[in-house]
């Protein structure tokens, strides 16, 4: 397990591994939206929390699309499936590696990008908290989608299509936390929901993903 985690992390941080690209994509997205929506801070402020969450979600999604596909193409997945490692463990480890290389940097940079979109300062801790609670679920759900689409040649877009609906609850409660935080309302309920969803996803999805992988290897 540890060997797999180490390999995935070192692959991600090698040249061409794409470490940091998620953040860069996030930045670009946050920069693009005002180009579409208009520069006025009054127009931006109400949508800031939503844009930030959607941006984080997309950055996460895009970087995930080939989490299993690369291993499938070069045959590693066949070999992993015949190795003593339980496939569920491999899925969990790969999702964890993805979260470390993508989710964490996103969380660290989100406050800065909040500035760009005129997110009120007192909402920033809520943004960070909601991302911290929510992104692990995004990684794990993405791993599930990637497992389902692994054999397909144009998996990327299909993957987005499958996974985005699964992301909706996380997105909803995540933005709700930030919105309520920004308006100084009680945030306990959405925080609890968010944490609950993430806990459930982390506990159950690895099994579904591993099953999907086994089918795709047949």
């Amino acid at each position, binding site marked *: 397990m540890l060997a797999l985690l180490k390999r995935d992390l070192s*692959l991600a941080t*090698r040249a061409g*591994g794409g470490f940091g690209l998620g953040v860069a994509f996030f930045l670009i997205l946050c920069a693009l939206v005002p180009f579409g929506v208009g520069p006025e801070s009054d127009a931006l402020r109400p949508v800031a929390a939503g844009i930030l969450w959607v941006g984080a979600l997309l950055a996460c999604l895009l970087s995930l699309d080939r989490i299993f596909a690369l291993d499938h193409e*070069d*045959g590693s997945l*066949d070999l992993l499936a015949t*190795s003593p490692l339980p496939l569920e463990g491999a899925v969990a480890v790969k999702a964890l590696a993805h979260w470390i290389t993508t989710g964490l940097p996103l969380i660290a940079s989100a406050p800065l990008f909040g500035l760009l979109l005129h997110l009120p300062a007192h909402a920033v801790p809520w943004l960070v908290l909601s991302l911290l609670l929510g992104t692990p679920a995004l990684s794990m759900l993405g791993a599930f989608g990637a497992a389902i689409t692994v054999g397909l040649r144009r998996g990327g877009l299909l993957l987005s299509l499958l996974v985005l609906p699964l992301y909706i609850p996380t997105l909803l409660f995540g933005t709700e936390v930030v919105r309520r935080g920004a308006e100084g309302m009680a945030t306990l309920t959405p925080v609890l929901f968010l944490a609950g969803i993430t806990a459930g996803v982390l506990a159950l999805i690895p099994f579904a993903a591993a099953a999907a992988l086994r089918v795709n290897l047949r």
Partner: protein
Amino acid sequence: MSLLAVQDLAVSRGGMRAVEGVSFALEPGQALILRGPNGIGKTTLLRTVAGLQPALEGRIDMAGDCVAYAAHADGLKGALTVTENLRFWSSVFDGGPVAPALMAMDLEHLADRPAAALSAGQKRRLGLARLLVSGRPLWVLDEPTVSLDAPSVARFGVAVRAHLAGGGAALMATHIDLGLDEARVLDLTPYRARPGRDARPAGFNEAFA
């Protein structure tokens, strides 16, 4: 006890039976070479034995976790060096040390090269070195010597013999001569699933029979 016993096996690919009625057993120290024309189902059979797809009929008896499978794709990461690739697979399989495997496949001078910068034959040698570090007793190999030059084929033969001598076994599919004269050969041609109008679809209640 035999390492692998296959009884009356039928395998399918793309919803059609490929071969059926195949039986054989492999004792420790034995090697079996599968032959047969293109498309008869050698790859399919090997994947079934490796546990990557279910058998349609018949039974496969072997100890759990004893197969090391090697196919056309070698499971190499181009960004990692030769040593890193091997070390990864060794730790995943709780296998043996890397240095002897590198030596056996004549890869020492390439040890620090990223795998992406290897030629076709060098990549294949690295894929075979992976078998040596896996520590598994049963090797299941699909066309193992593709792209290898003659000295490398000989080196492969030496490695297989050492594996057999150590109580391992090997099941291989190939079209060319591997130089393993002691290996038994099983030609799959007679086991081809009945062709033409009699051919039966695989599964879904045999497509309504």
